[in-house]
């Protein structure tokens, strides 16, 4: 069967999809997006986490046909997704900030990082530049940069799922407690058991996010 859906903001069409095929399989094997990892195939490990119409789900448990007409964001599109979100927020928050802050850096900073996290964004740009792995020539998403800076990546297999899940949590809950982080990431297993650094990375991303506002 044929499945039409949007992946990372672009309309896609997959042909000859087997009816029992998972969204994960379509993404990896038909769309050439191997960022979402295939590990347990039963929703236990979270390595295949993607956003489906904005909601984090295990793509191994979504039948390909169920994605028809829906929007999927994978780790490959996370940087662009985060940038768009930051731009939207900057636009919405610009007037508020103009009223709130009467001195200093009240203006909207135009640039790749959007208005939020301007100083931090500049620092990140110098330190890491564009990443060919994203394929977009974009700056990394803040959560991706935080994972690198905190040393939260070991073998890297669980990382894509964790990034998508953590990014969604920070979108919803900008000031998470440790318990919030643990719960939000409870569906993502790291076999290197690098959880402490992962916690550090999410805390770091949260702190940078709040500084940027």
């Amino acid at each position, binding site marked *: 069967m044929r499945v039409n859906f949007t992946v990372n903001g672009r309309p896609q069409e997959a042909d000859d999809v087997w009816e029992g095929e*998972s969204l994960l399989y379509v993404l990896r094997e038909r769309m050439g997006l191997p960022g979402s990892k295939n590990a347990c195939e039963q*929703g236990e490990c*979270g390595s295949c986490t993607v956003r489906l119409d904005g*909601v984090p789900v295990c793509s191994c*448990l*979504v039948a390909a046909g169920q994605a028809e007409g829906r929007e999927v964001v994978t780790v490959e599109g996370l940087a662009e997704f985060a940038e768009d979100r930051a731009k939207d927020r900057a636009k919405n928050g610009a007037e508020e900030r103009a009223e709130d802050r009467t001195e200093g850096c009240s203006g909207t900073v135009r640039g790749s990082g959007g208005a939020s996290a301007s100083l931090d964004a500049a620092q990140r740009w110098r330190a890491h530049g564009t990443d060919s792995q994203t394929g977009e020539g974009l700056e990394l998403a803040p959560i991706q940069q935080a994972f690198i800076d905190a040393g939260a990546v070991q073998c890297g297999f669980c990382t894509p799922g964790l990034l998508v899940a953590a990014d969604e949590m920070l979108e919803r809950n900008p000031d998470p407690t440790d318990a919030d982080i643990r719960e939000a990431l*409870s569906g993502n297993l790291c076999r290197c058991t690098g959880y402490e650094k992962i916690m550090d990375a999410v805390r770091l991303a949260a702190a940078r996010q709040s500084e940027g506002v």
Partner: protein
Amino acid sequence: MDFLRPASWEEALAAKAEHPAAVPIAGGTDVMVEINFDHRRPEYLMDLGRIADLTEWEVGADSVRLGASVPYSRIMEHLRTELPGLALASHTVASPQIRNRGGVGGNLGTASPAGDAHPALLAAGAEVEAESVRGTRRIPIDAFYTGVKRNALEPDELIRAVHVRKADGPQQFSKVGTRNAMVIAVCAFGLALHPATRTVRTGIGSAAPTPIRATAAEEFLNAALEEGGFWDNGKTVTPSAAKQFADLCAAACNPIDDVRGTADYRRHAVGVMARRTLTWTWESYRGTRRATEGAA
């Protein structure tokens, strides 16, 4: 395999009537596991994801009509007051990713004795709204589970909603597992106090071929609470009554030994959870009573 995509509930019923072997898929958290592992190759897979009605709920005077596909995360967020037991149980389901997809209809359709929603539904009191092209019927939750992963649905029927009685008193849910997330219950226990009818209802998961109520335990406790005037005087349940209740709950189990736990452990743990949930709910009931009296 054929993939059916009914755009409406009526289309889904018609498709199910035409292809009774069609396997409905909503959140996919059970069905896709079976397909991924090649344990199941249904001739027809029927996606219910396009039927918006299934993800809606209505809060009525006495009960909540909960659409079969309302995700657990929604129940946790929006129905904590009306369905506290089910909201607590929902929170113990797997992980955020799974709770974003799975719903009570899937738990009922799969009818695993380990389904987290079952003890809460049994304790609260619920009816399953099943429908086919032949008509609609409401199946009392006590009559719904017929065997290990078997339920009372006819081959042409689909679960549209579940009608759960709104809480009229404190409810609790407890589950034993190796960690808080991603755990299939070793065993689970739900308890609901119903001050309006002066009754207590229970639900036991993973400790018998089907989810069950501990009816003998309920009868004992109902009588003990009534005799002692506990509903009126709001006294603490005596330790001996709590122990007897716990023992009867344990005795209601008919568990097996498996990788998750032994039958003996399950019986023991159900007794412990019964005593604890009774204490939690009863203390909460007493607290509410005191607060009400204090205000009056």
